[in-house]
């Protein structure tokens, strides 16, 4: 009844091609952004920022990156935490060795370094596909774990291999409170989401999707697979590199190579599978699912006054979390984003479904 595009006429190509063609959607999105910028900073507690919201924002960025590669270009990677590690260590070394750089420049450079590494590990994708490629990307993970644990130069010869960072300063703005970090992360995420959304709508995204759907056909219609696949690896690793730098500097503060281990790669992959492959919104929903749910599940028994032992609560958390993943995948194999889309379709017909 309310959610309907009746009477919204597009008289220019520009209007027809805008990001959110439906007026209600635009207002809704503006409302969400306004809420995020104006209300959340005043309502949320430090605990919420540090344990829930900030990790969610950073991992969403990483999930978008992985989604561009896996969801849009169809190249499976189970080593994407490695590119986050490259971003984090690149940023650490840039800050340590070239201290005059602005953090925004550091972020971009860290992303570019991660992109180069990503493209290098993407080369096998030109010859191998599917599960075989997944195994090849695993090499990126193990190589990265090894290099940052063993090559002392990258960790500035820290005696235990753990590096630590100073609070980030942007011009005169020191990001030391959880709220400052949140506002900065939110800004970065919005910019990168816009870029990602537009990339997927442009010729690059179309080339990726064509490659994903059928690479032989894509080649026939004039898309160079080398170009499509390597750009996907590059852009995807760029996103993960930036996310890794943010994860290190604004979330962890000090970290060891273990912070970017295979578990994180799997978590990222689960995020996009549960959220929805080939959907930017899915990256958001998936990240929220993976970040928030375990923590919430862990606290529920105590909240509702069920005295469970610590070990029992932890085990219950695993069991429920696991079953929810299975449940969601059974109910909607295309992820939470698809559920959202179905909901929207239903809304358009409501209250008079055919």
């Amino acid at each position, binding site marked *: 009844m309310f959610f309907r595009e009746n009477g919204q006429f597009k008289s220019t190509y520009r209007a027809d091609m805008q990001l959110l063609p439906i007026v209600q959607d635009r207002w809704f999105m503006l409302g969400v952004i306004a809420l995020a910028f104006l209300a959340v900073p005043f309502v949320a*507690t430090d605990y919420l920022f540090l344990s829930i919201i900030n990790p969610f924002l950073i991992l969403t960025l990483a999930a978008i990156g992985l989604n561009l590669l896996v969801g849009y270009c169809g190249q499976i990677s189970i080593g994407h935490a490695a590119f986050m590690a490259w971003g984090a260590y690149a940023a650490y070394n840039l800050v340590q060795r070239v201290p005059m750089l602005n953090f925004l420049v550091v972020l971009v450079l860290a992303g570019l370094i991660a992109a180069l590494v990503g493209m290098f590990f993407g080369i096998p994708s030109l010859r191998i596909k599917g599960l075989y490629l997944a195994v090849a990307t695993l090499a990126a993970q193990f190589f990265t774990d090894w290099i940052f644990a063993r090559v002392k130069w990258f960790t500035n010869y820290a005696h235990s291999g753990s590096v630590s960072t100073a609070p980030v300063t942007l011009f005169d703005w020191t990001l030391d409170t959880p709220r400052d970090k949140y506002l900065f992360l939110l800004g970065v995420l919005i910019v990168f989401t816009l870029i990602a959304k537009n990339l997927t709508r442009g010729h690059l995204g179309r080339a990726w999707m064509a490659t994903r759907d059928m690479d032989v056909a894509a080649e026939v219609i004039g898309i160079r697979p080398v170009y499509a696949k390597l750009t996907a690896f590059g852009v995807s690793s760029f996103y993960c590199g930036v996310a890794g730098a943010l994860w290190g500097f604004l979330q962890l503060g000090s970290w060891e190579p273990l912070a970017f281990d295979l578990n994180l790669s799997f978590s990222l992959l689960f995020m996009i599978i549960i959220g929805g492959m080939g959907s930017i919104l899915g990256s958001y929903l998936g990240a929220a699912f993976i970040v928030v749910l375990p923590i919430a599940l862990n606290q529920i028994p105590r909240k509702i006054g069920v005295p469970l032992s610590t070990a029992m609560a932890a085990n219950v958390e695993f069991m429920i979390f696991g079953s929810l993943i299975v449940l969601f995948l059974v109910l909607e194999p295309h992820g939470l984003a698809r559920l959202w889309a179905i909901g929207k379709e239903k809304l358009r017909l409501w209250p008079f479904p055919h």
Partner: protein
Amino acid sequence: MKGRLKGTLALAACAAAAFFATSGTALAQANEQFFPVLVYRTGAYAPNGVPWANGYVDYLKLVNARDGGINGVKITFEECETGYATDRGVECYERLKGKGPTGATTFQPLSTGITFALTDKSFTDHIPLITAGYGRADSVDGSVFGWNFPIGGTYWDAADILVQHVGKKLGGMDKLKGKKIALVYHDSPYGKEPIALLQERAKTLGYDLILLPVTHPGVEQKATWLQIRQQRPDFVFLWGWGVMNSTAIKEAVATGYPREKMYGVWWSGAEPDVLPAGDGAKGYNALVFLAPAGKGAVHADIVKYVYDKGQGTGKKDDIGEVLYNRGMVSAMFGVEAVRKAQEKFGKKPLTGEQVRWGLEHLEITPEMIRKLGMTGFMEPIHTSCENHEGAHAAMVETWDGKKWNVVPNSRYESDMKILEPMIRASAAKYAEEKKLPTRDCSKEDGA
């Protein structure tokens, strides 16, 4: 519908916010001192995490049941499961740091990785971190690490004491020249900590150091022990945790490496480390950190006041295990720090900042140890603003197939002439990296 959907969404968001928001709020103002308890009762390291947690919680319960709290201030506590994972540890920290009328007293994460992450936060949150027998070796320097207390010993102490012990076994430190020492270590900050000291010592003593990392969780060590078979080191130092320890001993049996020449750090010398290896573990050595296995007056009290009332955290039979005792002693540090700080600030709930004063003026004399019922389970401790460690001695114990026996005349103190400059240099580097201001201890000590 759109409106209603939005309403539902908003409601859900509010509910979620309220759900998490109440996590951080303080309970009603009460005469209570809140102790957060970070534990791991699940996961790969649970066999070692559980006895430690039981000892820790039992001691807190004992202080409440026997003494009615610390000078009348009741102890409250809440456990949070970290699973030995750094990110969950940090989440637990954030969840618990604001609880109780004055916030958390002190955190003891029992994980070097979590310690590294929390150290970062201690500078703004002002909650002391007690890392008895783990954590950063350079955090002894209280002028940089204002909130870390590696009370009783660090990994550099442990490594130094092991070198001294094997030197003595050979008949003099000069005999170490040309010998080969292999370090089999957990490939994490925990396992890497001792490397710097062992390398420093190798420079003057002239032994060869072979570094053999083992990846988490340490069940796959075939390649490591193949190298030991090839290189035949004269001694193996084991820096493992959890299942890695028992696996290493089993691999030593399979390789035919004599257990008598294996020396574990104090985290590789508890019952869960040797029992799975059965008879093969006989002759294996490890360091004793403060408390060996066994029972004293304090254990009798724990049985009487806690277990006989049905309040015990674990099984009665497990009281007195190595890690149980270590957890108990760790809890004692926190309690005694509060008691000390109460002398200055009054018998009321204290903030983390006040507890730090207590931790920096901790003086546990032999007389006090006797009163605590811990004779034989404690070294005298004396801390200050510059020295957050308080003691740096340890003993060596050997497993005879049934229990741990302390080797006679095996109490060593680490050589501070070597450690001191390393600690200062490393702390200074950390301060520079983090752009931290250092404290001037000479001005603060009287305060």
